[in-house]
């Protein structure tokens, strides 16, 4: 289902044009990477504050109320540029092991954000100026740092073809994880 959808999108004239463009694709890719400075940079600083390792004199709400809007804008930009890059080559990314891992890590990061905002952040008034926020906040920061590190690393690895389906043989696990459609091996005569 998802694959036939990816194939249909990949056959659209605008998708082909984007895929084959000489400058638009690298410009999109550059915008995607450069926005990382604003997105991951500001997100990491909030995490470091929640961990209590920096900005001990600065209230946590400074970060969640004044810096987080910038993180959100940067995330919107990253989603937009990332979405266009995906639109340009949906079938390649569908079968890309690192892209699949990246999506899983994005889900993990998203769940962590949801958990933090629906629970831990509610009591921020009680620990706003604490040099060392409560355990739940510190845990959220560690999961966030780990998940985004994973997203960045797997995102970079998407460009490499080590596990591409047309470069067999791979282990059965890799073929399963990347969704490769491998013809069954002929039994020896």
């Amino acid at each position, binding site marked *: 289902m998802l694959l036939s959808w990816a194939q249909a999108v990949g056959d659209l004239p605008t998708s082909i044009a984007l895929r084959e463009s000489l400058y638009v694709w690298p410009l999109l890719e550059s915008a995607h990477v450069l926005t*990382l400075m604003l997105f991951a*940079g500001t997100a990491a600083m909030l995490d470091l504050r929640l961990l209590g390792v920096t900005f001990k004199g600065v209230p946590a709400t400074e970060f969640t109320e*004044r810096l987080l809007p*910038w993180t959100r804008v940067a995330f919107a930009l990253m989603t937009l540029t990332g979405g266009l890059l995906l639109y340009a080559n949906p079938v390649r990314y569908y079968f890309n092991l690192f892209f699949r891992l990246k999506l899983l890590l994005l889900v993990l990061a998203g769940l962590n954000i949801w958990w933090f905002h629906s629970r831990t952040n509610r009591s921020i008034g009680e620990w706003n100026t604490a040099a060392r926020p409560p355990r739940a906040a510190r845990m959220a920061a560690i999961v966030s740092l780990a998940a985004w590190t994973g997203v*960045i690393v797997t995102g*970079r690895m998407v*460009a490499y073809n*080590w596990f591409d389906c047309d470069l067999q043989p791979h282990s059965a696990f890799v073929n399963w994880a990347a969704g490769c459609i491998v013809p069954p091996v002929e039994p020896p005569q």
Partner: protein
Amino acid sequence: MDLLAFAEWCESTGLGLVVRESVWLFPVIEAVHLLGLSLLGGAVLLVDLRLLGAGLVGTPAALLARQLRPWLTAAVVVMTATGVLLFLSEAVKCYYSQAFWVKIVTFPIAIAFTYAVRQRVAEAEDTTRGTAVLTAVASLTLWFVVAAAGRWIGFS
């Protein structure tokens, strides 16, 4: 010694060869370079935004600049160490890349400006609004050029 010969020598060094001949070392070093970029982004942008009157406006710029300084230095160290390794493995390609030359010229300027000028402006008590904005714009422009040129090396 001319620069092309120097680039060729770089590629023939032990480190250059190890990175070049490995399938996964270059991508892994690149990934660490990107993590360094993220940290650098935070350390640079928080202060620049503050100088522009945005972001953490409830916190004095001087405090931000002082607290972020070790993180800035850590990011610069990580980026330089990984950048040198990446360069050693493909020095000749870099020699012929215009983007590389743009980066290698603007990078030390950005470093010098950040530590010598921006840090002082942010930490000074009597900085005027005009000076603060001008400093932030200069810093943002410099780092944008360094990062964009850096990314463009990969496309050349």
